[in-house]
């Protein structure tokens, strides 16, 4: 310590009030302090690229030609900006619902292996039905149209839609229940199991015959290749047809070929007979219904209500129950909207870009040969606009262990509208417009399938998800979260394609790495 510093330290010590206020924390007090983090939110926010020019380059196509993307316009503004034309201000989070960046473990990140702590970035999270993306996204899918637009002011429209879907599912269930009421579902199952034994035997027979046909075809091919161009007066026939001399041909090669064609025909006949027998096995009737019908009904019932465990089964799991659960959320959102509830406003985000890429003209000459022409640079315009975008309840957990940097992410994105265009001057009638867009994307699960990011020795980036193994497959399929995408309505070039949904996607294995082009 320099004398100067020592003097100041002494002077500070002499301040009696300060020294008294400092207290040592005991172990218990320290134990109560958890890894507090940082909360943040933004208000009155907008960003506009303005007059700046921005360009992404260095991307190459597979031939090593450079591709550039020029951003002509980019903005992030509050909802209602009319695609960036107005400087509407955005509110991202509030003091009690901020973005957070902190170290978590235990209940805040339940999937983490015990003893592990992760750095977590989490977007504002609400539990009320309108701002909880999961519930609102579900409602918006059934609603189909964009709430608030003309012709879309009744929030109960979603309720009608899910009721109709549920009604359809219940009608299918009731038909099957009525069909086998007197039989009982366990009896139905044992009947199917017994009849399936014959099906399985005959399936094996079909497999054997298929293999025989392939063998005979191979023999026929070999012998055809060895067969002479002429056998006496008889010219070599087309493949699969016989020399006219039958079994009296002069050369042994021609006779052998003819006999292989006969064998092939015999095998084909046997295969046809086996397939017919298999078809008959599927048609075996019990309780007045064919095996095919019974098996289909049983599978459908299992999907709707879960696998039956009694002669008169209950319907407490399966798709009907799931739809009922969803209906609860849909009704809750609809009721809240009817009572005048509003959502926090989202963001309007947009990018307009020009892609410049090399383009080669090909033409065909008089002989039908394709000729490579001159390579020129082509410019393609591309625009993407999001209206009313929210990212509520999304998180990213990052931690490190002996295998490297690990992570798990859950993206909960909702947007009122997504507009993708390929034309600079046109209206939405010439663009792809998706309304009520909900992305529930889950990548990685901390214990069973952590997302791994690493850089290889050569400087290549690698992103991987380990595959499911035999040891963990049960837990894997129960616990690794699935991803869902739903669109209330997709409109392409002015044509409504209706609602689109992808449910239950899960990545079993992923290994993504960059490569330096050209290789």
């Amino acid at each position: 310590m320099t004398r100067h510093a020592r003097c100041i330290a002494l002077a500070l010590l002499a301040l009696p009030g300060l020294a008294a206020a400092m207290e040592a924390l005991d172990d218990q007090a320290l134990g109560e302090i958890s890894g507090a983090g940082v909360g943040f939110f933004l208000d009155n926010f907008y960003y506009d690229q303005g007059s700046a020019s921005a360009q992404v380059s260095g991307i190459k196509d597979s031939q090593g030609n450079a591709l550039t993307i020029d951003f002509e316009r980019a903005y992030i503004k509050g909802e209602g900006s009319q695609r960036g034309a107005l400087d509407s201000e955005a509110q991202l989070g509030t003091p009690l619902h901020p973005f957070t960046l902190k170290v978590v473990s235990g209940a805040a990140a339940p999937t983490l292996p015990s003893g592990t702590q992760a750095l977590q970035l989490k977007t504002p999270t609400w539990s009320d039905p309108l701002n909880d993306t999961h519930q609102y996204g579900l409602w918006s899918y059934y609603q189909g149209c964009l709430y608030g637009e003309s012709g879309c002011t009744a929030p109960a429209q979603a309720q009608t839609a899910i009721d109709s879907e549920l009604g359809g599912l219940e009608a299918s269930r009731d038909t099957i229940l009525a069909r086998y009421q007197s039989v009982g579902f366990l009896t139905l199952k044992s009947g199917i199991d017994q009849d399936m034994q014959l099906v399985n035997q005959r399936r094996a027979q079909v497999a054997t015959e298929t293999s025989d046909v392939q063998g005979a075809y191979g023999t026929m091919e070999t012998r055809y290749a060895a067969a002479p161009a002429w056998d006496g007066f008889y010219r070599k026939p087309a493949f699969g047809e016989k020399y006219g001399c039958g079994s009296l041909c002069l050369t042994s090669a021609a006779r052998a070929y003819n006999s292989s064609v006969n064998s092939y025909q015999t095998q084909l006949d046997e295969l046809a007979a086996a397939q017919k027998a298999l078809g008959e096995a599927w048609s075996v009737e019990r309780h007045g219904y064919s095996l095919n019908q019974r098996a289909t009904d049983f599978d459908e019932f299992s999907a709707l209500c879960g696998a039956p465990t009694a002669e008169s089964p209950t319907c407490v799991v399966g798709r009907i129950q799931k739809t009922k659960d969803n209906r609860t959320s849909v009704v809750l959102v609809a009721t809240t909207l009817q009572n005048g509830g509003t959502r926090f406003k989202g963001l309007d985000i947009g990018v307009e870009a020009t892609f410049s890429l090399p383009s080669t003209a090909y033409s065909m000459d008089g002989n039908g040969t394709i000729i490579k022409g001159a390579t020129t640079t082509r410019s393609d315009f591309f625009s993407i606009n999001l209206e009313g975008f929210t990212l509520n309840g999304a998180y990213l957990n990052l931690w490190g262990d002996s295998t490297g940097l690990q992570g798990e992410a859950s993206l909960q994105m909702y947007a009122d509208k997504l507009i993708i265009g390929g034309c600079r001057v046109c209206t939405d009638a010439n663009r792809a417009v998706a309304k009520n867009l909900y992305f529930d994307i889950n990548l990685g699960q901390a214990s069973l399938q952590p997302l791994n990011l690493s850089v290889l020795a050569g400087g290549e980036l690698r992103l991987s998800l380990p595959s499911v193994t035999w040891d963990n497959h049960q837990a894997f399929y129960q616990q690794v979260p699935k991803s869902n995408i739903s669109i209330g309505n997709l409109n392409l070039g002015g044509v409504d394609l209706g609602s689109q949904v992808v449910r239950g996607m899960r990545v079993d294995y992923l290994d993504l790495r960059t490569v330096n082009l050209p290789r």
Partner: protein
Amino acid sequence: MRSKYLGLALLFTVGSALAELRPLAEDELQEISGQAGLSISASLNFAANPAQTRCPGGCGMRVAIQPANSAGFIVLDNIQGTFSFEGLSFDIVTIDSGYDGDGAAFNASAMRLGLTDASFSNARFTLAGSNSAASGGAGFQQTDLLTYRVNGDVRMNGNLYLFAAP
């Protein structure tokens, strides 16, 4: 030994200063919110180093991050150009109202960063993966992913509030 005399002088003045400086009680401290903040204007220039011939005209700044147990590095390479802004404000405020009732319930201080328009002059960076933190040298390997360039004025508005999250 000027510092020694300065220190001694401080020691002597403390006694009289204490008479004027009264320690504030905890409840009094809580009532004080940030009065005036800082306003920052800056122009940051990242110049290329012509000695590094790997990049045309010399390479700019390089930031390398090595993910845990990785052999290689993620790099932001060749960071060049000028980034400037005027009037970025910085202060501490008490949030006790607004935000649909969230403000009153929050009733605490937060650090406020007032965003402002910014200007870029030939700013650029390259995102890449590399086998080495330092640039160049024998056996140096790098896979460039993309290069981003920006030039001109961007418009930005808003307040970023930062606080300790429970």
